């Protein structure tokens, strides 16, 4: 029984870690008011063997290096074994901040929050939440 639990735990963690991003693409557009619209597409792929990702949530949180909030966007997802899902985000950078970024006076930081439950059937077994931060350049 202990061996079964140990193997199950290892598989749970391996399956959770097998969810990865692929085909990350982005674009930007400036509107008439000078605000910059950032379009980010992220494809999530699951290479899991047994467990599925349920009640998933991917949030992009844009802020300046001074900690000021700029914008956020959230998408939810469910990923079965071997499935993939494409999530599209739109973040708006106000014109005054965009000008400061272009002038290299401030930096934009993108916090990426990923959260999902590892599930088997209808049983939600373990929740994994990951936060990472990416520095966006002024270009």
């Amino acid at each position, binding site marked *: 029984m*202990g061996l079964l*639990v140990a193997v199950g735990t290892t598989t749970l963690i391996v399956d959770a870690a097998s969810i990865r991003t692929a085909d990350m693409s982005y674009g930007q557009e400036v509107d008439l008011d000078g605000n910059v619209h950032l379009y980010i597409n992220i494809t999530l792929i699951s290479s899991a063997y047994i467990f599925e990702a349920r009640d998933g949530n991917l949030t992009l949180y844009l802020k300046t290096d001074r900690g000021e909030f700029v914008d956020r966007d959230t998408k939810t997802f469910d990923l079965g074994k071997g499935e993939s899902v494409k999530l599209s985000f739109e973040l708006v950078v106000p014109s005054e901040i965009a000008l400061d970024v272009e002038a290299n006076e401030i930096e934009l930081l993108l916090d990426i929050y990923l959260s999902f439950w590892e599930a088997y059937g209808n049983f939600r*077994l*373990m929740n*994994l*939440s*990951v936060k*990472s*931060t990416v520095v966006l350049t002024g270009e």
Partner: protein
Amino acid sequence: MGRAKALAFGIGNFMIYGFALKTATSYAYSEFTILLPNYDWFLLAIVAFVIGVLAFFQETDNKSSKALGGFLKNLMVAAYTYLAITMASLIIIGYGETAFIVRLNWGIWIYILVFPAIFNGLIHLLKPFAEE
């Protein structure tokens, strides 16, 4: 010989539960910059000491102390597992602003993890009397 064996078993249990995890977390931090902020080695060391003492009683020749020692030792192992797993619920990889932060909510899986130790404890409680 019985007592010497029991003492060796007790010390062995204390060493494994007291130091294996500490060695693993120190290695993870020094090699991969993986930090467990909630990791409390002192609390785990106290639990490991109690496990060592109960493991000593589990290996004695007296049937009652063997049964009770085995049962309580496995309950403490379940408690140790629960503590270690909940301490590993927050993992930080790297430094500073761009550090990778992982939070684990073990949900019902943590109860599946501690169940074998509790089940083993019940077996240890009944085994000496069942053999009779």
